[in-house]
């Protein structure tokens, strides 16, 4: 866009046309106070805080040329009234006088603050926003010292009002800026908030059941300029100025949102330093300034009572506390003894450094990645390349989402892809059921579960959708495991990779394949060389097993059975799990909040996280436990310095070439500027000072030659009469080890339930909410039924991590449960 030059407070500023005056001033380092304007939202002009004097060059009506004064300068015509800097775009030759140079603007802003305070409760002492409140800050900076309004005429409204279990509302504090409503409507796409009444009675209401039913609700507390919206999690937790901040990465999903943990030392916690709240940290290429509620509220597992604090060893059938030396000695002895017959099982919960050490440790013995989703080898080949940013995608670009319910699997990707579609990108959503993203799709493809490969193959053919995808300048494919197991997702990845290659959408920025992985660092595990195995139970039977960061026994009784028949089991994890219960030796590890490291996101961005709180008990970081164990077995691994391990990775893997810890900690200036002293502008999201991370290179980007495997076209499973096709799907809030301990989320997690089309449910005589007996593959369980119009008939959705061990599509029979009298 063309640039426009204007003068703000006697300063020449050149900004792209279309920029708003308030942003132009910001870029010039001049602060115009705002309440309702937010750089991520469309301007609304509701609060009148940004009043400034604006003058435009006087134009000659006849010629359209600027009128010149005696000195030959363009004559400036000022508007008689103050204007809002947040709704006026800049124009050539414009002259703006903010409160810094204009007495009039200063008086206008002062009046606005006085007005906003007429009904404000001023309960700053008990307000969770106090200390980082825009109204406080701007009142101090621009407000009058006294008010002319009558105290007795203050408007009384509801205080302490829970909008849902997660967010509290104080209606007296609300200044009716509508930032929260506009965020929900425009950015989150979940219009659950609104205004009721008019004038001074105007108040925020939740229009959903359950209240404030959105998975992005926490963000409204960041951008609310006052303490009207606050989280239950942090309610009265501490005053903001008492908190320390540590940069980290969210470990809940493959997006890898940048965030900041706020901590403080507490008497309640026996003088320990504890996490008080989680705040987003700006990374315009990953999560912008947002994060989802799972990341914000589900972190409590790192401080759960189930945390392992000391090494344990099985003695006389019972797990007993032992020293690290005893535990490591025994584990090393047994693993060496069964060297030829041992398996290392890891998961994507671990950091890149842990996985690198583990991979060398496993050496020639079997090393398995614990996952039910395949295709990570292909994302290494044709994954997205350096500089990829969904935020840059728009008109002329295409994004294909297949077999992934992004809303549940990777919320921030959902939000950013939705935004890309709104900017004009062609969004193709292909799935076996209706998904929330459909609403924003240019094309939706509904296939029968099992026809995923065929769907992709059709996109290589001749159709309007295929054409749109092929012709797109840039194209990304997000593939997941909605309704797929390991075999299905592996094939799907191959089909997608081939489609990208054929349509020449690889090796360039904003092109390539993205896996929507179940865990934060699955991509990293694939990069380090770990692969899943088709028959995990078989691979574990009768072996000496070293399980790190995975809970197979908790997920699947068949795997528990296999582990029971293992020769020796060493489990290294952060908390007690069903797998750990079966272990001979348990080594307590630290979660990412207690140590440093790096994760590789689904977009193959490597990002650093930093220690937040001190280690729990005697737990140690995974990479050093593995190094200690290795040393006992004669393998020398780096066990104390993470940067050194990372340098090893960079030297041995071409994708990591040129990266190091310093490079990952680099920050370039981001727009909008948030998290500085001016919290009224961008909200309370933290500024990123600790690294934006860096992309791994893909083989396609490096120009390597490679051959892509052809997709295996398996015959789709079609259930017989009286059976249903059961497919595994992911729910955002589940009963997995990293979510279940968040008490606040209990209501949203709910109980295990299979979803059926109402007609299918009707035929089976099961109404919504009723309990039924299901049996599949020799297993049985009782679950509730939920009906969902968006499903195909004859399909049953089985949520993962809810205690129903369905790891692949399978046929399933449903019977009404015996009525309990």
């Amino acid at each position: 866009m063309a640039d426009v030059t204007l003068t703000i407070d006697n300063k020449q500023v050149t900004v792209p046309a279309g920029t708003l005056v308030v942003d132009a001033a910001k870029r010039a380092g001049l602060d115009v106070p705002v309440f309702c304007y937010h750089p991520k939202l469309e301007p609304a002009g509701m609060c009148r805080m940004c009043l400034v004097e604006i003058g435009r060059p006087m134009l000659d009506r006849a010629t359209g040329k600027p009128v010149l004064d005696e000195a030959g300068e363009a004559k400036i015509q000022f508007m008689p009234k103050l204007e809002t800097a947040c709704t006026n775009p800049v124009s050539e030759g414009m002259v703006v006088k903010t409160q810094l140079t204009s007495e009039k603007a200063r008086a206008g802003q002062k009046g606005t603050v006085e007005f906003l305070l007429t009904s404000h409760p001023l309960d700053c002492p008990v307000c969770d926003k106090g200390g980082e409140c825009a109204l406080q800050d701007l009142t101090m900076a621009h407000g009058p010292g006294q008010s002319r309004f009558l105290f007795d005429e203050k408007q009384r409204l509801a205080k302490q009002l829970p909008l849902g279990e997660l967010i509290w509302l104080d209606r007296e504090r609300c200044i009716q800026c509508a930032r929260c409503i506009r965020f929900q409507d425009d950015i989150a796409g979940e219009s659950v908030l609104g205004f009721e009444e008019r004038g001074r009675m105007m108040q925020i209401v939740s229009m959903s059941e359950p209240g404030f039913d959105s998975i992005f609700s926490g963000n409204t507390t960041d951008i609310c300029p006052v303490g009207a919206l606050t989280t239950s999690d942090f309610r009265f937790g501490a005053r903001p100025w008492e908190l320390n901040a540590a940069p980290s990465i969210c470990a809940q999903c493959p997006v890898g949102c940048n965030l900041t943990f706020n901590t403080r030392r507490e008497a309640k916690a026996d003088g320990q330093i504890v996490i008080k709240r989680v705040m987003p940290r700006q990374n315009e290429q990953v999560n912008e300034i947002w994060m989802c509620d799972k990341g914000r509220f589900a972190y409590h597992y790192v401080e759960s009572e189930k945390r392992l604090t000391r090494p344990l060893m099985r003695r006389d059938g019972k797990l007993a506390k032992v020293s690290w030396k005893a535990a490591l000695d025994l584990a090393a002895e047994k693993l060496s003894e069964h060297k030829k017959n041992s398996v290392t099982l890891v998961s994507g919960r671990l950091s890149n450094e842990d996985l690198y050490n583990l991979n060398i440790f496993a050496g020639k013995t079997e090393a398995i990645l614990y996952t039910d989703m395949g295709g990570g080898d292909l994302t290494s080949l044709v994954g997205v390349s350096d500089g990829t940013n969904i935020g840059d995608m728009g008109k002329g670009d295409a994004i294909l989402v297949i077999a992934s319910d992004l809303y549940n699997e990777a919320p921030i990707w959902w939000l950013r892809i939705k935004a890309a579609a709104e900017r004009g990108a062609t969004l193709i959503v292909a799935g076996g059921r209706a998904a929330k993203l459909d609403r924003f799709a240019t094309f939706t493809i509904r296939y029968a579960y099992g026809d995923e490969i065929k769907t992709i193959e059709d996109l290589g053919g001749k159709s309007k959708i295929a054409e749109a995808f092929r012709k797109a300048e840039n194209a990304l494919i997000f593939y997941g495991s909605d309704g797929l197991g390991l075999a299905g997702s592996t094939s799907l990845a191959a089909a997608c990779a081939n489609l990208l290659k054929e349509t020449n959408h690889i090796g360039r920025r904003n092109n390539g394949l993205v896996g929507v992985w179940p865990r934060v660092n699955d991509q990293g595990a694939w990069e380090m060389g770990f692969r899943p195995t088709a028959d995990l139970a078989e691979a574990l039977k009768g072996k000496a097993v070293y399980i790190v960061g995975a809970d197979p026994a908790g997920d699947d009784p068949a795997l528990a059975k296999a582990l029971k028949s293992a020769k020796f089991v060493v489990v290294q994890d952060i908390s007690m799990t069903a797998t750990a219960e079966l272990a001979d030796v348990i080594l307590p590890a630290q979660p990412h909040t207690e140590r440093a490291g790096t994760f590789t996101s689904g977009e193959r961005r490597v990002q650093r996280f930093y220690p937040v709180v001190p280690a729990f008990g005697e737990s140690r970081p995974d990479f050093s436990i593995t190094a200690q164990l290795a040393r006992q077995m004669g393998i020398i691994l780096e066990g104390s310095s993470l940067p050194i391990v990372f340098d090893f990775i960079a030297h041995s893997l071409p994708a990591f070439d040129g990266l190091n810890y310093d490079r990952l900690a680099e920050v370039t200036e981001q727009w909008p500027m948030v998290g500085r002293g001016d919290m009224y502008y961008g909200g309370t999201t933290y500024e990123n000072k600790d690294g934006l991370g860096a992309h791994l290179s893909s083989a396609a980007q490096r120009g390597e030659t490679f051959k892509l495997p052809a997709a295996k076209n398996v015959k789709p499973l079609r259930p017989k009469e009286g059976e249903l096709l059961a497919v595994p799907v992911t729910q955002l809030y589940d009963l997995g080890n990293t979510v279940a301990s968040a008490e606040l989320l209990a209501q949203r997690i709910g109980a295990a339930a299979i979803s059926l089309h109402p007609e299918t449910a009707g035929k089976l005589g099961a109404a919504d909410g009723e309990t039924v007996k299901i049996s599949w593959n020799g297993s049985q369980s009782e679950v509730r039924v939920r009906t969902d119009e968006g499903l195909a008939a004859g399909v049953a959705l089985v949520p993962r991590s809810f205690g129903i061990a369905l790891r692949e599509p399978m046929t399933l029979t449903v019977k009404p449960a015996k009525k309990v009298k």
Partner: protein
Amino acid sequence: MSLLEPIIELGRGLVITMKQALFNPVVTVQYPEVKREVRPRFRGRHVLKRYENGLEKCIGCSLCAAACPSDAIFVEAAENTDEKRFSPGERYASTYEINMMRCIFCGFCEDACPTEAIVLGDNYELSFTNRRDAIYPKEMLLEPVPSADMTTPRKTEANVFTRSVPEMKNPKDWESGDTVKVDT
């Protein structure tokens, strides 16, 4: 030199001594049997005050801790309910500690408090044989309840104690009305 002279000198000295002993006011105090009264603005050991109805004035806002130059105060807050109410409004101090070894008795905490809950009293007997004892918890600081039925926490009538900070009425000198000066 006569023999009398030293005796006279001795007598003179005694006269002065007796004058001092018998006619001058006594300034020493027989502490600890006798305790000296303190001046009205004396700043001694803190007290956490209560309202007349027994509810605690402290609302756990931590402003005293923020004002304290020697970081002597530590506050943790929690939520009141009508079933279990400590103070008016939504918030109360679930932990309130002052480290008397750190305190310099400057009174900044008093100034910062929005509810006049923390007040420096007239007790100056602060000695400990153990560093930990120097940390005074809320139980030690809190004023005794006026009567037995006024203990906290207690059950209160619903929707009565909704505000944490007592309502600020217009100050006296404003009441004359039109003479209020507002700088614009």
